[in-house]
């Protein structure tokens, strides 16, 4: 049962995770996940504090819905900050760096996924999981390290924009494939419905700007927040109800708000909302994780880390070169892109919905545990590579010169 005490423990626990993250100067996302794992029912059941049973947090409806909202707001923000015109403007460089990134990492992910799980759908999911870098963690590291003012920030943020656009389309297809079952006809239908819905949203985003502009026309922050949340969550809910990815729907709603004059207000007003529910999402990821499965996926995770760290460094390096950066800064781009995070986890959550439908229950939970462990490793490894980039930069300069 979701009681207030349980929710209180949840928020207190993620708040403590934030304090620890500041203290050790590391990204908070892996800590949220670990906190979720520690407070999952399998651990806390049977624990009593002064005669009172420890409140059950995991598996409660609040956490499930809160996590869903976290996904919706993460993607909504992605859409909000996504500027199609700007992408088109610098399409040549972003396109080149982005396609290198996609070709190398998604390609390697497909091969790796098939080698590890021997299942085509699993291969598609793993490809997405290892391809998509973490916008949240990478952007924060860029700011923390001061790289944001350097030339390497542009190819990194540019590649992230490309990845975000790709992942919106990818999630549509992946969600439809996963819930469509093994019947090819049914899968094709659900992909069709999903794509039709997305096209509808795209048209809305493209031509609905005046309506979205008027919809938020109010001097009250209260009404503004409520209207934006109302539209976003309603559309996401409709999407989910007809079997389309709610994350993608939220992305396009965000995109529809992006050209309006309210975009800065929305960013300021909704950022705390997003961060609150995103924390619940990462917590939920931890709760759903069965740590006893980690040993069985350890080999797979190790293989994935060994393969996909160099591929990201390579694609990032080439992407940096495509932006006319020297070897030293290109190496930084590569190191920075290694971090995987929230979007890999969203794909893992999609995989979980396929348990017993298109994936066997064992396979779905294996992919899920694999992803959580993989993200825990990569989020820490990626930020460390950025913090201690000097030996790699020296190597790049020695190997490839300074030009």
């Amino acid at each position, binding site marked *: 049962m979701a009681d207030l005490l349980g929710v209180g423990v949840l928020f207190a626990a993620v708040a403590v995770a934030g304090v620890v993250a500041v203290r050790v100067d590391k990204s908070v996302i892996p800590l949220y996940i670990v906190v979720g794992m520690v407070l999952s029912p399998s651990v806390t059941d049977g624990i009593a504090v002064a005669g009172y049973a420890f409140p059950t947090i995991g598996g409660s409806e609040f956490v499930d819905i809160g996590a869903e909202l976290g996904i919706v707001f993460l993607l909504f923000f992605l859409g909000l900050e996504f500027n199609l015109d*700007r992408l088109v403007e610098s399409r040549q460089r972003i396109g080149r760096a982005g396609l290198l990134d996609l070709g190398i990492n998604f390609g390697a992910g497909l091969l790796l996924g098939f080698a590890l799980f021997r299942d085509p759908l699993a291969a598609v999911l793993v490809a997405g999981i290892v391809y998509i870098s973490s916008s949240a963690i990478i952007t924060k590291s860029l700011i923390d390290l*001061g790289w*944001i*003012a350097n030339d390497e920030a542009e190819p990194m943020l540019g590649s*992230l924009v490309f990845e975000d656009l790709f992942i919106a389309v990818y999630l549509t297809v992946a969600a439809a494939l996963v819930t469509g079952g093994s019947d090819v006809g049914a899968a094709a239908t659900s992909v069709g419905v999903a794509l039709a819905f997305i096209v509808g949203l795209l048209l809305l985003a493209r031509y609905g700007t005046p309506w979205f502009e008027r919809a938020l026309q109010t001097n009250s922050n209260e009404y503004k927040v409520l209207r934006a949340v109302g539209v976003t969550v309603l559309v996401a809910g409709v999407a989910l109800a007809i079997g389309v990815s709610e994350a993608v729907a939220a992305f396009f709603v965000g995109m529809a708000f992006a050209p309006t004059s309210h975009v800065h207000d929305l*960013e300021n007003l909704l950022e705390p909302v997003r961060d609150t529910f995103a924390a619940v999402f990462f917590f939920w990821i931890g709760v759903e994780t069965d740590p006893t499965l980690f040993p069985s996926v350890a080999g797979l995770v190790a293989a994935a880390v060994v393969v996909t760290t160099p591929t990201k460094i390579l694609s990032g390096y080439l992407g940096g070169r495509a932006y006319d950066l020297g070897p030293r800064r290109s190496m930084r781009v590569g190191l920075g892109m290694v971090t995987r995070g929230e979007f890999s986890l969203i794909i893992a959550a999609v995989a979980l919905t396929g348990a017993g439908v298109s994936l066997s229950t064992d396979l779905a939970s294996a992919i899920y545990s694999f992803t959580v462990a993989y993200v825990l490793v990569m989020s820490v490894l990626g930020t460390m590579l950025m913090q201690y980039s000097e030996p790699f930069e020296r190597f790049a300069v020695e190997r490839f010169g300074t030009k």
Partner: protein
Amino acid sequence: MDVTESDLPGVGKKHEVDIGGGQQLVIVTHNTGTRELYLKASDDADSEKLVELSDRMARLVGTILEGAYFQPVQSDHVETMLAEGTLLEWFAVDPDSPLVGETVASADVGQRTGVTVVAIQRDGEVIPGPMPERTIEAGDTLVVVGDRGSCDDFERLLTGEQ
């Protein structure tokens, strides 16, 4: 003067100002309003963070840098860009200016030059939106709004070059 603007998706905007000697001042404006100032000693160097300012503080510092807050030089030419092509300019009225003794109405600068006098600074005080019958005195600073051509015309009128 060379200013490069670029977008930082999800963060805000970056402006790089060439300040000479190969040095660049890099200003990162976050979507939250926070400004970060960096100095890039050379083209290849890493940016070194100088200071981080809140939106409010950045505006205050901005007005000081601009000279609108305090002007060390008795300049008769301080300008601010209000919008594309529209300037807000400050002009000192010299004792030998033909406008001394005229009222705002009789000087008729609107018709003659296209600018609007939006305020008069006199003895450390500001008279905003001066009435047409207000007299222009030597030592005043006139604050005018107009496009670049109108402001140039006004300057010629003020100094009696016409």
